[in-house]
């Protein structure tokens, strides 16, 4: 399957079939910090992903403000 990643933007090919959580583990990514999108639908960690799927792994963390910032 083709997997689209961000930060930096890149594509990798991973052999399927594979569960979402196994894919994240293989790429050393934490579930809590990412969403997995197949086509344009969100999938859960137990979802089975096939070789023909196009997957986006989208990071969800943002923020550069100081810890003590008021805003």
């Amino acid at each position, binding site marked *: 399957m083709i997997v689209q990643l*961000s*930060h930096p933007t890149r594509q990798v090919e991973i052999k399927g079939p594979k569960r979402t959580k196994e894919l994240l583990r293989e790429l050393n990514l*934490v*579930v*809590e*910090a*990412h*969403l997995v*999108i197949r086509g344009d*639908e*969100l*999938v*859960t*960690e*137990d*979802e089975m992903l096939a070789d023909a799927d196009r997957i986006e792994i*989208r*990071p*969800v*963390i*943002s*923020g*550069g*403000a*100081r*810890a*003590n*910032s*008021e*805003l």
Partner: protein
Amino acid sequence: MNCTKCPTSTKAVIGLPRHNAAFCKGCFTTFVHEQVARAVKSHKMFTPEDRILVAVSGGKDSLALWHILLKLGYRADALYVNLGIGGYSEESHRKVRLYADTVAAAHGATLLVHVVEQEAGAGIRELATVLHRPTCSTCGTIKRYQFNRAAVEHDYDVMATGHNLDDEAARLLGNVLHWQEEYLDKQGPALPASVEGFAKKVKPLCRLSEREIAAYAVLNRIDYIVEECPMAKGSKMLLYKEVLNRLETESPGTKQRFYWGFLDKQAKSESAPESMAAKDQRTLHPCPSCGQPTTADTCSYCKMMAKAKTAAH
């Protein structure tokens, strides 16, 4: 994985280990709306009659917040501050404008825009260089100032920001690690308008994790900027979030126990918001240059702008 709320067990789109639940799209949207409604009610953030100004950046949190408030029937306009960070600002500005025109306008909501370059004569990157200050701190000062000024000048009752549970837990961790107790007082999800010239500030997303908000944005087709601000690279907040997410993975619910536990302790101690308001009234006075409240002779924004203009000539 099936939805734990639907009687017919529809297929879930997201699992929420900290709630020991999984939701389909409809139930997840309801869950997010309920969490915001609970935050608004329990922290007395605003009422349906209040006019709200949402601080939007083009990112998932602020656009999702604007979306949720409009869906819940609140009167919410937004302000976008264009920081002049090249392509990044252009793209985020475009996303905000698109949302305002295609979704918010139908709810009768409007978008205000402030362009830093028009007032300061330079973008945030150049300003930070001239001022010899970290970019994130320069950005914070400018955004705080502009949002507060716009809220006061346009008579909004309250200013809302898209800070989420992860932001607040990471900030709490940073303040505790450095024992910055003076900042802990101001870490509540609702800061009162303590003196004339200060808008009330609220964080209605404080019960929702960053992942939950991103999922809400994806499921509701909100087109936000996924790319991280290029200035934020290597920031301590990102490190604290990474550490907290590792803990969360091992022990679901850690982030909310940490932050909500702090809020519980704060609520039980001497009514903190009131003492904060009293302290503000004692220490703040209008800036002689712009009239906004400050503890110094001249406010940090006016000092910064004067320094930038001197350096430019």
